[in-house]
């Protein structure tokens, strides 16, 4: 039997600048119109991408707005969304990043460090790959599964 995988890909490149985050969210919100997902799911996906890119901008690129981030969205069979986030900054593997649990934030509130635990809470799968080292290229892939 011939099994056909239906896939659709779109991508956007942004500058490493927090003012670009809104353009990225608008891009995905527009892409999401093709998907049968709830408004809340769109919010959670936008939030995960936003947190990852905010971290890249601030930490890997140290707010250097000449640097770029490429984000690729692939929807497969209407129930799997793969998002690939490519950067050329200092490698940072969020999976290995030992995050204090969120409870710690409740008992001792502090400003930073909430983004990665939040991403881990929202995504179904996350993988990190260093593609090359000279020049540096990194890929963070996150997946969301819909019913």
């Amino acid at each position, binding site marked *: 039997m011939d099994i056909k995988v239906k896939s659709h890909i779109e991508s956007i490149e942004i500058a490493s600048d*927090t*003012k670009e*985050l*809104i353009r990225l*969210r608008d891009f995905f919100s527009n892409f999401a119109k093709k998907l049968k997902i709830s*408004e*809340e799911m769109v*919010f959670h996906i*936008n*939030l995960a991408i*936003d*947190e990852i890119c*905010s971290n890249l*901008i*601030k930490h890997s690129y140290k707010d250097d707005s000449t640097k770029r981030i490429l984000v690729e969205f692939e929807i497969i069979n209407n129930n799997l969304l793969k998002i690939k986030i490519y950067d050329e900054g200092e490698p940072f593997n969020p999976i290995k990043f030992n995050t204090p649990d*969120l*409870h710690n*934030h*409740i008992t001792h*509130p*502090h*400003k*930073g460090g*909430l*983004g990665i635990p*939040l991403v881990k*809470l929202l995504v179904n799968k996350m993988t990190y790959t260093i593609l090359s080292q000279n020049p540096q290229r990194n890929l963070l892939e996150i997946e969301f599964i819909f019913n």
Partner: protein
Amino acid sequence: MDGIPKFQILKDFSEEQVFLNIIGYLDAHTAPELELALKESMEKGKYNIVVDFEKLDYISSAGFGVFMEFIEEIRQKNGDIKMIAMNSKIRHLFNILGFDVLFEIYNDKNQLLGNN
């Protein structure tokens, strides 16, 4: 797109309780504006702060990090940050993160005043 502010804060310092009405998108780009507004309130010696979320469409960790940054200092001064009128998406996010334990959250201004 340009011309429409992505984020805005309407500040009311006239009463004993400060009202900050946050509007639009609160992310890593706009969070410093909220930081300034909270600092302004504290500099005025006003530590009882109510944040109205009714017109807030989006918040990321940079946004709620600002509340985390000041909450302990504000409570040490016998003040508090209370939150009202969150949309269901943002309210659900606060619940997921356990922030509903950390902050008093009310459906609207009437419910807040009834509890004061």
